[in-house]
């Protein structure tokens, strides 16, 4: 079983703890640093998020750039992740303090690359183009593009509606010479699983959404293994 860590550097809007149903455990220190919070008994999924350090979950983190950068520095250097196969870093939108802080602090370790997530709309791919430039300028390899919210199949009549337009992710990949990893449809079952912190992959293994996410992660893993 692979050991995976998730570092949530969205300091103003930390969503990962709820999505993994982790609640608000205390974060402990050990000799090697902060102990990450484990999502499972086997300790195969470790997580660090500012969500764990807030006394009140509704408390706003109203910090300017330098303070955010310092916190991220601590998250990277002072968390005792242990042996991990993969460390995933979830970032807020943008090309600013958080993104620069993560890269600066990960510089001494190897960064395999970045996955860029977009919706099909031009308004979204328009921003992701700039994110790709950020990756080029900071020397981060673009592992590929994922198109989220890619169509909705009506459960009543099976008609597919392209609520957030269509095709933008693939077009963006072609335009920028990036790998298109795949698309994930809009799925109320995925939305509600995430809301309730349930494991969608376990609950709905036969769904088209599961299949889409699975094939994206397989494509990603092969690309990482071929390095």
């Amino acid at each position: 079983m692979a050991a995976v860590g998730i570092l949530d550097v969205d300091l103003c809007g930390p969503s990962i703890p709820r999505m993994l149903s982790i609640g608000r455990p205390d974060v402990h220190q050990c000799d090697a640093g902060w102990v990450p919070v484990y999502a499972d008994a086997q300790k195969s999924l470790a997580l660090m998020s500012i969500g764990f350090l807030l006394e009140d979950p509704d408390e706003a983190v109203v910090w300017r750039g330098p303070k955010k950068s310092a916190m991220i520095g601590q998250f990277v250097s002072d968390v005792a992740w242990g042996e991990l196969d993969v460390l995933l870093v979830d970032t807020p939108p943008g090309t600013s303090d958080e993104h620069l802080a993560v890269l600066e602090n990960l510089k001494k370790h190897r960064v395999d690359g970045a996955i860029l997530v977009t919706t099909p709309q031009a308004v979204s791919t328009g921003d992701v183009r700039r994110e790709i430039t950020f990756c080029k300028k900071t020397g981060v390899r673009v592992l590929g593009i994922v198109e989220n919210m890619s169509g909705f199949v009506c459960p009543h009549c099976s008609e597919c509606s392209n609520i957030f337009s269509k095709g933008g992710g693939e077009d963006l990949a072609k335009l920028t010479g990036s790998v298109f990893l795949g698309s994930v449809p809009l799925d109320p079952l995925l939305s509600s699983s995430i809301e309730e912190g349930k494991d969608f992959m376990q609950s709905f293994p036969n769904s088209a959404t599961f299949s889409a996410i699975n094939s994206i992660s397989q494509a990603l893993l092969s690309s990482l293994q071929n390095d």
Partner: protein
Amino acid sequence: MADVPDNAPEHCPGTTSEQAGKSSSCEGCPNQKVCASGATKAPDPAIAEIGAKLSTVKHKILVLSGKGGVGKSTFSAHLAHALASDSTKEVALLDVDICGPSIPRIMGLEGEQVHQSGSGWSPVYVDDNLAVMSIGFLLSSPDDAVIWRGPKKNGMIKQFLRDVDWGDLDYLIVDTPPGTSDEHLSIVQYLSATHVDGAVIITTPQEVSLQDVRKEIRFCQKVKLPIIGVVENMSGFVCPSCKNTSQIFPPTTGGAERMCADLNLPLLGKVPLDPRIARSCDEGKSFLNEVPDSPSAEVYQNIVQSECF
């Protein structure tokens, strides 16, 4: 003195920051002594200048959200269109999402550039009575990335407020990026010598969105920014084929309705998903004009016509 002077080192915390002159990045900077002395933390004169400049703007409305991707820019743009549909009103839309400026595309102004004149920067006009300013107009290519830390973003926001020749306005709408950070603090700080009507907060029905929106509400309370109300976007989807409604983003904890009831805030409206909204935004058109009979357009019109604006 500029917030990040030209001769400052790369990680300059900003001359008005608590860390000014004291952070490790300040070592060796020619301004270190001045910053450490506290002289740079005196109120920024730009605040008073902006106060004077914007005294001819009757209403200032910030559009905020804790969460990204909930439809802030879509709402800001269409609020601006709706207010400007009254040709006697002068409306302006300021985009302070420095890293992800969507407003030029949504307003059909991609590729436009900003001009300088004696009275400052001219905003870009959509119509005679609808002006727009965004960093998007200062970038020469759609691939350009704005890789700026907080202090530099703050400097840009200051310029947008102080140096743009807005003229006399009935409404200035400010579209923001998600979060409670530099852009949000700066816009509130730089507008502190003016009257701000308040903030409209955008969410989707999901708890992961509401969770961040509650933080945004705390931010507003902390900086004493009145909250005009909350708009719930992506609130259900009516299939164009069979007309059944699906909750694509289920309100597992009661949606904005429950949150507003709990926090005693006005719920301005619930806007259903409509694929034509995304299409209009991508094409730079107002969906209020393109599909005025859409249930989403009706909700928008009701929101704008309510006494809140």
